[in-house]
């Protein structure tokens, strides 16, 4: 597998990054295109977008991606594209110069400039060092052999994937992961999923000793062993051996473990070499003050490379806090960074692990422990002076956020101490708690999305700014946009913040737009838009060419708004409408010719019988709509089948379309002793009037000759029930999953009125229902009184609707089968022809 985002270094020559003569803004140069560097820039842009001219140097060839999501990429759960945080457009849109594959190698503080590996020298007004950390490579013999890697960037993931691929040839391949911490276990999990036999070596007696206590670590170890990994604790590596490449690892006790890949994941060290050589004050990390300023007032530093107040952080949450303080400082709002309390939430192979704060115990600390062996759950909360100071959860981490919130706020828990271990639901008032109430109880700064560092307050602010769906929140503040484990929380915040508006509020058409169906239709008409690309352009679609939800909808809306003008976009049609037949699960099609009002004759039946034999159709079925369905036709044969059916006078039955399907009839007064009117004749007339019209969804009509209703007209979209004195008109019925009986629209006295009302009703539905909304839910939504008002009470309006329908029908009633049979769109039915074969 290959991961490339097509980026060569953005600038090939120095000239391109010279300051434009009219740009007098201060120049901020960022060393490091990783999570900290880019987040700091994002925070800065959010505060004062135009204040600085920004140049970012990155050592990797990629745009900014979410490093903590490399594990799902390794595990095959995500692709590299999924974990990109900011794509090229973000850099371009914000006027940021990105220089990739070219790390900064020196800082000249006197002349205020940096020089890169390739020799570029660029001046700065403010310099931000965000070099992150380097993986620690244990100094054993063989550490430099090919096949020894770390787990830090996309290149490492590619190496692991290549090793797994190579391993497939020899029945799996063997890998050793040195380090049983968070990173090592994720690497081991991914490699296991990729088919390798994995041994984890951990020098300490228990896994993840910095995050887990002994009991939780033992549960984790047992579970991982159950998944086929070999876990050796207390394992001290003596050397990596091999001739020219890795062949295995030898421990100090003499044990040899063969392996073609060794992943060193024993820890990380702040990357400080650049800062140290520049003479900045460096301890374990680059020393910074509360505003992330180093010992040089014009040089700042942020992320894993810094040391603040004696602390160095290797987790993502503190990074977000630092970036906020940094951006505040750069825009003259000196809030200051006060250090971070960290928590870890980890999911390895479906195993949930959470820890926060100090769980080492000690004087004055009390442990509250819950074990549920059969569920595989272990919880331990450490309390000191009536305050939560630490928590370890294994197997059920739902309350992790709550404990962490109590811990950060230093809340007195004396009153709920007895119930504390059972979680927020019980401690807050007994019994199972409504998850919404649980979310409501969280404080505004409670972290919701750990991947992107988004607090509850930020999610609420995003919703209040207009995001009213999960997708909109993801786009607006990135909460739930990465691993998705907080999706439930975000949905609950949506429900809490918007109340009932989540359901009834303007639903967007799809992920590609923030507009709802009604908005889009209104704007198409108001702005006289004439094509799908025009709609997407004018309404700011977020995707290049929409998706399989919005394209068919837009195509229909334009078709409805511009009869005779709009050119149907075949590529925005669902397969059935593009192929004018119904795709079946084996990829063949079924073909239903129209039988007007359910009537047929010997000529039609002979033609159908001939087609069945000629094309070897395995099945013919009488449909519920009173016609015949021929199954098992290959796409290549469709035009010929249609030609044969056309020859007998038959046209497409549109059994495949969001369109008029059939008009079902009973035999009526011509034959039936109960019949009151000529229902068959009226059915044929109705079908002749309505066939071929495209609709928001499928549309079925029936005409019954008496109230016995043999044509089942009262579960159709439009139903006519004949009575002695005239015709009852019924609307909005549905026989599908949710059976709905029609509403009575009105009663009319003549056939012509029945036809006129039918045309008007159909057009109202065509113009006002949302795409893929049947008449039943549409009428439930707008109310039958509204429909009556438009069709029954407003004579002029009804007549106008009828006229628009009949006008539109002039352009709709061309048999699509005849066009295809005559050769139109033949490419849809034929294979490409491989014309030559050349070996190179």
């Amino acid at each position: 597998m290959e991961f490339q985002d097509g980026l060569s270094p953005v600038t090939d020559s120095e000239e391109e990054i010279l300051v434009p003569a009219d740009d007098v803004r201060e120049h901020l140069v960022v060393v490091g295109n990783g999570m900290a560097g880019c987040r700091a820039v994002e925070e800065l842009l959010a505060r004062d977008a135009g204040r600085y001219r920004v140049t970012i140097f990155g050592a990797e060839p990629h745009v900014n991606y979410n490093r903590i999501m490399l594990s799902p990429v390794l595990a095959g759960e995500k692709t590299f594209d999924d974990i990109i945080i900011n794509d090229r457009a973000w850099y371009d849109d914000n006027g940021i110069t990105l220089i990739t594959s070219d790390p900064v190698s020196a800082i000249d503080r006197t002349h205020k400039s940096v020089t890169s590996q390739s020799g570029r020298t660029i001046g700065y007004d403010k310099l931000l060092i965000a070099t992150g950390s380097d993986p620690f490579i244990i100094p054993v013999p063989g550490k430099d052999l090919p096949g020894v890697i770390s787990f830090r960037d996309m290149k490492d993931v590619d190496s692991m994937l290549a090793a797994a691929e190579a391993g497939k040839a020899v029945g799996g391949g063997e890998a050793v992961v040195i380090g049983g911490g968070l990173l090592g276990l994720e690497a081991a999990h991914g490699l296991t999923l990729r088919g390798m036999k994995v041994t984890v070596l951990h020098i300490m007696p228990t896994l993840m000793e910095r995050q887990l206590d002994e009991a939780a670590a033992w549960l984790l170890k047992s579970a991982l062993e159950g998944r086929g990994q070999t876990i050796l604790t207390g394992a001290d590596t003596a050397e990596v051996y091999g001739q020219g490449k890795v062949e295995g690892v030898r421990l100090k006790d003499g044990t040899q473990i063969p392996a073609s890949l060794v992943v060193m994941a024993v820890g990380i060290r702040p990357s400080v070499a650049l800062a140290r050589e520049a003479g900045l004050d460096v301890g374990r990390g680059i020393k910074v003050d509360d505003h992330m300023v180093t010992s040089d007032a014009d040089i700042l530093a942020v992320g894993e490379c810094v040391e603040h107040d004696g602390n160095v952080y290797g987790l993502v949450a503190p990074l977000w806090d630092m970036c906020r303080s940094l951006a505040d400082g750069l825009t003259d709002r000196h809030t200051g960074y006060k250090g971070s309390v960290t928590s870890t939430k980890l999911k390895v192979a479906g195993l949930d692990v959470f820890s926060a704060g100090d769980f080492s115990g000690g004087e004055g600390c009390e442990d509250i422990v819950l074990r549920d062996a059969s569920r595989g759950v272990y919880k331990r909360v450490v309390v000191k002076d009536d305050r939560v100071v630490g928590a370890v959860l294994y197997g059920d981490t739902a309350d992790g956020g709550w404990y962490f919130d109590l811990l950060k706020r230093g809340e007195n828990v004396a009153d709920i101490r007895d119930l504390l271990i059972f979680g927020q639901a019980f401690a807050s008032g007994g019994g199972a708690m409504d998850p919404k109430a649980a979310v409501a109880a969280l404080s505004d700064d409670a972290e919701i999305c750990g991947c992107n560092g988004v607090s509850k307050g930020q999610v609420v602010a995003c919703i209040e700014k207009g995001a009213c769906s999960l997708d909109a929140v993801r786009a607006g503040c990135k909460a739930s946009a990465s691993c998705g484990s907080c999706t439930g929380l975000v949905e609950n915040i949506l429900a809490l913040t918007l109340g009932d508006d989540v359901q009834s509020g303007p639903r967007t058409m799809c992920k590609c737009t923030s507009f709802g169906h009604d908005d889009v239709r209104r704007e198409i008409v108001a702005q006289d838009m004439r094509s799908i690309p025009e709609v997407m352009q004018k309404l700011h679609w977020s995707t290049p060419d929409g998706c399989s939800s919005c394209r068919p909808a837009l195509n229909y809306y334009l078709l409805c708004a511009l009869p005779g003008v709009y050119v149907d976009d075949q590529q925005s049609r669902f397969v059935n409408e593009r192929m004018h037949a119904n795709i079946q699960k084996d990829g063949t099609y079924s073909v239903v010719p129209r039988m007007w009002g359910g009537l047929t004759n010997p000529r039609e039946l002979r033609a159908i019988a001939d087609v069945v034999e000629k094309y070897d159709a395995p099945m013919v079925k009488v449909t519920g709509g009173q016609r015949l369905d021929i199954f098992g036709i290959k796409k290549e044969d469709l035009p010929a089948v249609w030609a044969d059916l056309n020859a007998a006078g038959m046209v497409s039955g549109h059994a495949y379309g969001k369109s008029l399907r059939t008009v079902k009839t009973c035999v009526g007064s011509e034959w039936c002793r109960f019949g009151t009117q000529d229902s068959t004749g009226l059915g044929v007339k109705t079908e002749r009037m309505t066939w071929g019209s495209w609709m928001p969804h499928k549309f079925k009509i029936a005409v019954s000759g008496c109230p016995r209703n043999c044509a089942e007209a009262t579960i159709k979209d439009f139903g006519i029930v004949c009575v002695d004195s005239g015709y009852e008109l019924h609307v909005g019925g549905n026989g599908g999953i949710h059976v709905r009986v029609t509403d009575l629209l009105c009663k009319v006295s003549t056939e012509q009125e029945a036809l006129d009302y039918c045309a008007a009703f159909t057009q109202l539905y065509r113009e006002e229902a949302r795409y893929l909304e049947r008449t039943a839910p549409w009428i439930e939504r707008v109310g039958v009184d509204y429909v009556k008002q438009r069709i029954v009470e407003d004579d002029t309006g009804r007549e106008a609707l009828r006229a628009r329908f009949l006008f539109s029908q002039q352009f709709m009633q061309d048999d699509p089968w005849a066009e295809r049979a005559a050769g139109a769109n033949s490419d849809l039915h034929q294979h490409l022809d491989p014309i030559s074969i050349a070996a190179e």
Partner: protein
Amino acid sequence: MTDWIDIGTLADIPQRGARTVQIGGEKEIAVFRTGDDQIFALVNECPHKKGPLSQGIVHGHSVACPLHNWNIALKTGEAQGEDKGCTPTIAVKQEDGRILIARPVATKAAA
């Protein structure tokens, strides 16, 4: 060594659409043309229920399967979103206005 097979020109495939090609007795291949005129080739089977991907709606660099609307990435053949599965990809290139696809070794072995 890769055998490259000439299957036609860009114009033979509708934009945001696909055509199929059958090479020898092997599985049918769907050749896609995206809105930005890139060409991708996949075995013409959704990893879900083997729906003919060539008949789906092509959007961005994905195709929505016509049977159950799974979205498949054209570059990798991987199902997107919550769905899991992968359709084999076939190497394809454009040269001098012609579309060339690699003789599908993988499907040959499977067939």
